[in-house]
């Protein structure tokens, strides 16, 4: 049995390599807000209140481009609706927590933390304090997100754009799913999602980010049915 502290540090270590993409993305996110002419306090507030990289950038870009607040808010909701899927997966492991703890832990559920902690949960289902892994990964991502967006706000985009560090974002997620390429059913689901995302890329409110997973999950259900 692992102690809470050990689980927390395993959570920390599991997301630490992802800082290679989180930090440059945070800097870009902060710097873009300032470049678009928003109040620094407002740009930073997004990192605390929304705490979701892509949706923060889209929100500011839409508002600065003259879109209505309704459209900006809807886009944030649509982009972040994928968390509903993360929550549905994680709920199995967080069932026994008190309601208050569930409310608190929900705030730190983000892509990389969900992905890495979920991998750990699948392999260690019987550990009693599993959620400390999610706290470790989530708190780490939260702290680095706050620091890197702040750095972008204060220092501007000091990372040269020529480096193309935005490319680190797809790479981070390749690292997360690459081992599942061993399983044919997962490959089918991934390709379905990827092709759908390109097909629906121009759908309103950035909805490709939730349309493609829904299509891919339908295909997953079909694959499961065929396997029986």
């Amino acid at each position, binding site marked *: 049995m692992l102690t809470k502290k050990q689980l927390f540090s395993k959570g920390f270590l599991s997301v630490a390599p992802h800082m290679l993409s989180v930090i440059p993305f945070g800097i870009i996110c902060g710097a873009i807000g300032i470049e678009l002419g928003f109040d620094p306090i407002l740009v930073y507030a997004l990192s605390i*209140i929304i705490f979701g990289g892509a949706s923060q950038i889209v929100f500011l870009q839409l508002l600065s481009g003259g879109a209505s607040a309704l459209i900006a808010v809807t886009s944030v909701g649509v982009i972040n609706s994928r968390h509903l899927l993360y929550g549905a997966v994680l709920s199995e492991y967080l069932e026994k927590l008190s309601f208050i703890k569930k409310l608190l832990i929900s*705030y730190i559920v983000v892509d990389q933390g969900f992905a890495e902690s979920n991998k750990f949960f699948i392999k260690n289902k019987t550990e009693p304090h599993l959620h400390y892994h999610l706290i470790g990964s989530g708190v780490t991502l939260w702290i680095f997100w706050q620091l890197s967006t702040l750095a972008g706000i204060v220092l501007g985009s000091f990372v040269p754009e020529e480096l193309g560090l935005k490319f680190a974002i797809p790479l981070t997620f390749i690292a997360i799913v690459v081992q599942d390429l061993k399983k044919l059913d997962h490959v089918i689901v*991934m390709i379905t999602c990827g092709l759908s995302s390109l097909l629906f890329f121009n759908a309103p409110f950035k909805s490709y980010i939730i349309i493609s997973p829904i299509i891919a999950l339908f295909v997953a259900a079909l694959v499961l049915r065929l396997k029986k």
Partner: protein
Amino acid sequence: MTWLSITIAGIITYFTRMTMIALVDRDLLGEKVKAVLAFVPSAVFPAIIFPGIFINDYGTFIEMNDPKIFGAIVAILVGYFSRSVIATILSGLTSYWVIIFLL
């Protein structure tokens, strides 16, 4: 007005995180749904990966000889065999840089 929008966007985002964890009883989900949920990472992350590689900053498709495609292939191969997140990201970035800066 902007602050109000931020607050509402934040509340909605928080609800997307919290609803399934705190409000929905997991027993309501059938066995079939739970089996499908095992595919969530594979069903969600390619929607971030594919546009991140194949669509440029202006929202149009890249050329088939774009260095990002090469970088992604290197990252997939290195990641698959090394099982290391750091190696995956660094190999993808460096192979991408080699093409845009050295070739």
